């Protein structure tokens, strides 16, 4: 079900527009939601208190918080890129909530591949997180990938780094 990021190097030459990232499927539990909220220092009760979420927020259960979704999205994209992949930009929009008992599935597609003036390779990725037919989150990521097997985007600074 889960993959582990490796130090293997995916270079920009290995990537083409339309490439699909391997899907990630994860069964969300109450523990997933609570651990995610605490890991992001989010103490708001709708992420750990069932009574508050259902009675005050009027939703069916506690639900994943935004910063933890960002962490999931980063993990999904860097599982694919490998450790030398360096996230330049991440944006997302939550359309529906993700609750305990949901099986969330991440799908990603490469939407752009380019090399900038400084020689840094960039991949644009569109990610969708769905629970069954319910689209819950959409995201876009811009991630730097090595231009050659010896290149390391993490060493780029100043004008060499234009995320």
């Amino acid at each position, binding site marked *: 079900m889960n993959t582990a990021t490796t130090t293997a190097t995916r270079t920009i030459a290995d990537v083409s527009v339309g490439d699909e990232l391997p899907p990630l499927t994860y069964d969300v539990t109450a523990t997933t939601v609570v651990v995610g909220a605490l890991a992001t220092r989010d103490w708001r009760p709708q992420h750990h208190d069932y009574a508050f979420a259902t009675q005050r927020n009027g939703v069916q259960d506690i639900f994943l918080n935004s910063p933890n979704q960002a962490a999931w999205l*980063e993990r999904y994209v860097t599982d694919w890129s490998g*450790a030398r992949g360096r996230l330049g930009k991440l944006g997302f929009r939550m359309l529906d909530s993700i609750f305990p008992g949901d099986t969330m599935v991440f799908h990603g597609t490469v939407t752009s591949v380019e090399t900038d003036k400084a020689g840094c390779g960039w991949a644009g990725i569109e990610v969708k997180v769905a629970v069954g037919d319910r689209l819950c989150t959409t995201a876009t990521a811009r991630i730097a990938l090595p231009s050659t097997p010896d290149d390391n985007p993490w060493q780029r600074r100043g004008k060499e780094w234009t995320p």
Partner: protein
Amino acid sequence: MSDMPAEIEALIDVPQYDEVGEFPVERGYIWTSCASVENGNPLFWDDAVADEVTGGPIAPPSMISNWFRPHYWAPGRDVQPMPLQVHFDLKDKLGLPEAVMSDNTVTYYEPVRVGDVLSTCQRLRSVSAEKTTKLGTGRFWVIDVEYRNQRGDLVGIESWTGFGYKREQAA
């Protein structure tokens, strides 16, 4: 001619709410965050890989705002600080009691390193003219939150789009 209150116009691009993080970036929280999403990226778990690739241990970029979320409790604190205070100021100043955040985008610059103490400020970038959506009538705004390390290096800019509104009155 703009229908924007002068008080709001005067806030555009002005840094507000300078703040220094309550604690340095630390590995325990990095591991807790990675564990919460089962992120096995060796940059965060294997010092040899971190030394080789990033010149030492760093935090996952997506944790950038975590370093500014206040402790649940702190001695002598009576009021819990509000993150993104500019957003709540706008609601108040524009008389818009409801608000939703629609988009969040973060651009990452210098890596955040273990031991860094980050600082932040908020900048109102834009406020739209009045618009009516299915939620009600109000204004969209964009707020940037800028993060820097203790050396003054820019580490990230988080951009939020919000919509403050009044619900339509029932006929």
